[in-house]
């Protein structure tokens, strides 16, 4: 047994602050790049698993203990008034506009705080303290933050977040290079910097990727840090303790032993993030923006003259976290208190399980608008991986427990309602509930969701009678006399004859179904849905 007293040797070479900071920055970017690369694979595997679980047949009812466990999970979230008194469409529209204005104001305040912080720390980071340099620093930081900021604004801005953000990023990079006191960087440095920023942007702002990137990034970065920090701290001392021949073996054994606890801690941190999200501390829209700003702050500090000259103090190392905290605090203060719990109209979105981005764009747009006045329900499907950012689902998939989200059989209306998240978060955004069902559960669940919802979007773009799931839903709306709640979206591929035939079989006049042409746009669709909900 070797004598391990040498591990406590104060004279052993220790890691410098600059090296440690460099390692942390490197690991964060490696984790982000790994998450960005892995996310399409995770998404493909997630979709395949959802499709398989949707085909499941229940053969034995679940014990009462399982339902109690599901209920317990749902009870953890804040409650909201359940009975929704009918509101006038104008009132609902005004409420939506108020929530959007409040969110936009807070986002702009946070943007200003982010930019001003860059100006404030210019001297600490080794930039010139001249007012002109500080203003230029603030401008570069503001340009970098444009993408994450746009993504958190109402839809008319957020849909251009990636394109406009990339332009702002390029402008920021050009300005930053021009004001660099060290003169122009080498071409390789500029390419590397541009690649790093592009990865941040695409990974965290791309609409259909961010839902997978974020959870994988959180787990990867925590795991890497937990794995690397003890290894780095002990590495030099281990070399002193153990002869050269066994150092490599000891290192690999250390990695093997630490990997599982590190992964476990990574998943616990992700669970903590989800816990905060469930309690409404942030929304699925603002979190990716906040993470992008945090990674950007880290890149900013890592590329500063002070760090490049290896003058890294504890203050400098803490600056990215402080920067992010100041930005988040400004956002929270500008938002004000949690909005009062109000009775909210519920929207059910029924759709064909399409993977086309054009279809997703309209659904996402209507979701974004509706969630400022009420919750949205959807039957979960493999296509939603590209539409919604749901950290909980991705995290559950990563831990191999996606099946726990699926309803095995029809739950009663009250039980189903108690499982739905009906409250708004602190930003005023209501939840999007993806209700996953086994094949033995979805028909009854759809029926119950139709009953509890105030308005139903029936997306019939590309519909033909062969789409048996959607055909069942059309028939159900007719049979249950719920057509008045529905607005059917069609396109040039919609086979309206099949729709009329299905409604005829349900002995309902097809003229009762409100049709909507997708070319009329999101605003018109929103107005139609408000009119239905306010009936």
């Amino acid at each position: 047994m070797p004598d391990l007293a040498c591990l406590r040797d104060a004279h052993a070479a220790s890691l410098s602050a600059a090296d440690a900071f460099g390692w942390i920055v490197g690991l964060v970017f490696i984790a982000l790049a790994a998450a960005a690369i892995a996310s399409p694979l995770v998404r493909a595997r997630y979709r395949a698993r959802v499709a398989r679980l949707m085909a499941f047949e229940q053969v034995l009812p679940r014990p009462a203990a399982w339902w109690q466990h599901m209920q317990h999970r749902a009870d953890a979230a804040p409650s909201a008034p359940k009975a929704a008194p009918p509101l006038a469409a104008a009132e609902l529209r005004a409420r939506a506009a108020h929530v959007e204005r409040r969110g936009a104001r807070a986002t702009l305040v946070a943007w200003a705080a982010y930019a001003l912080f860059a100006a404030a720390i210019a001297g600490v980071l080794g930039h010139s303290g001249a007012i002109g340099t500080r203003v230029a620093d603030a401008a570069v930081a503001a340009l970098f933050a444009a993408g994450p900021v746009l993504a958190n604004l109402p839809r008319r801005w957020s849909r251009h977040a990636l394109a406009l953000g990339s332009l702002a990023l390029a402008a920021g990079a050009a300005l930053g290079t021009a004001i660099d006191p060290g003169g122009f960087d080498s071409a390789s440095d500029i390419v590397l910097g541009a690649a790093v920023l592009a990865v941040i942007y695409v990974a965290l702002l791309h609409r259909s990727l961010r839902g997978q990137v974020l959870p994988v990034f959180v787990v990867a970065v925590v795991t890497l840090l937990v794995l690397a920090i003890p290894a780095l701290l002990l590495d030099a001392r281990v070399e002193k303790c153990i002869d050269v021949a066994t150092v490599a073996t000891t290192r690999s054994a250390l990695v093997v032993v630490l990997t599982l606890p590190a992964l476990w801690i990574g998943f616990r941190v992700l669970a903590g993030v989800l816990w905060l999200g469930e309690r409404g501390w942030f929304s699925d829209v603002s979190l990716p923006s906040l993470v992008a700003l945090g990674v950007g702050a880290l890149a900013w500090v890592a590329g500063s003259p002070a760090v490049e000259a290896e003058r890294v103090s504890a203050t400098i190392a803490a600056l990215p976290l402080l920067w992010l905290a100041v930005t988040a605090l400004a956002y929270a203060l500008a938002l004000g208190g949690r909005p009062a719990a109000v009775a909210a109209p519920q929207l059910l979105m029924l759709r064909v399980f399409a993977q086309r981005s054009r279809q997703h764009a309209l659904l996402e747009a209507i979701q974004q608008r509706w969630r400022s006045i009420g919750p949205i329900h959807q039957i979960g499907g493999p296509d939603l991986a590209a539409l919604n950012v749901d950290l909980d689902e991705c995290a559950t998939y990563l831990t191999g427990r996606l099946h726990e989200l699926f309803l095995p059989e029809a739950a009663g209306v009250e039980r189903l309602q108690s499982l739905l998240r009906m409250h708004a978060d602190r930003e005023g955004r209501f939840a999007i509930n993806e209700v996953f069902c086994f094949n033995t559960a979805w028909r009854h669940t759809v029926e119950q969701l139709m009953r509890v919802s105030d308005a139903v979007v029936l997306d019939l773009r590309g519909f033909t009678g062969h789409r048996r799931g959607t055909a069942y839903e059309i028939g159900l709306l007719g049979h249950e006399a719920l057509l008045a709640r529905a607005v059917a979206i069609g396109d040039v591929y919609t086979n309206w004859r099949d729709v009329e035939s299905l409604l005829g079989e349900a002995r309902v006049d097809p003229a009762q179904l409100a049709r909507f042409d997708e070319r009329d746009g999101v605003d018109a669709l929103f107005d139609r849905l408000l009119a239905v909900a306010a009936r």
Partner: protein
Amino acid sequence: MGRLRLYVDERGRLAMNDAGFSWLAAISLPLWALQRRLYVLAVVALVVAAAVNVGLDPNAQAIAFVVQFLAFGALANRVHRTWLERRGWRVTAEEPAASAPAPPAVPER
């Protein structure tokens, strides 16, 4: 691709069992075990992996890895299923058999 079966115990806990070769178990048995909440097995597998890493020379390590890869991959799901059934877990839901017709509605939705 094996057939998936979902087991439940009296306390309402769920466990998914896949039939066929498990790539995760082949690559990392501790991870496979953790995913299924088989914590004792995860720790034992971790200790064995560390011992193999430290105690064997590189050639023996390579042979041990190949043997573990094939054995764990081939046996893990079968052993898991036997373990569940002996402990009183029961099948609560399952995938339709490959020979059965596709379930209505879901794929064509």
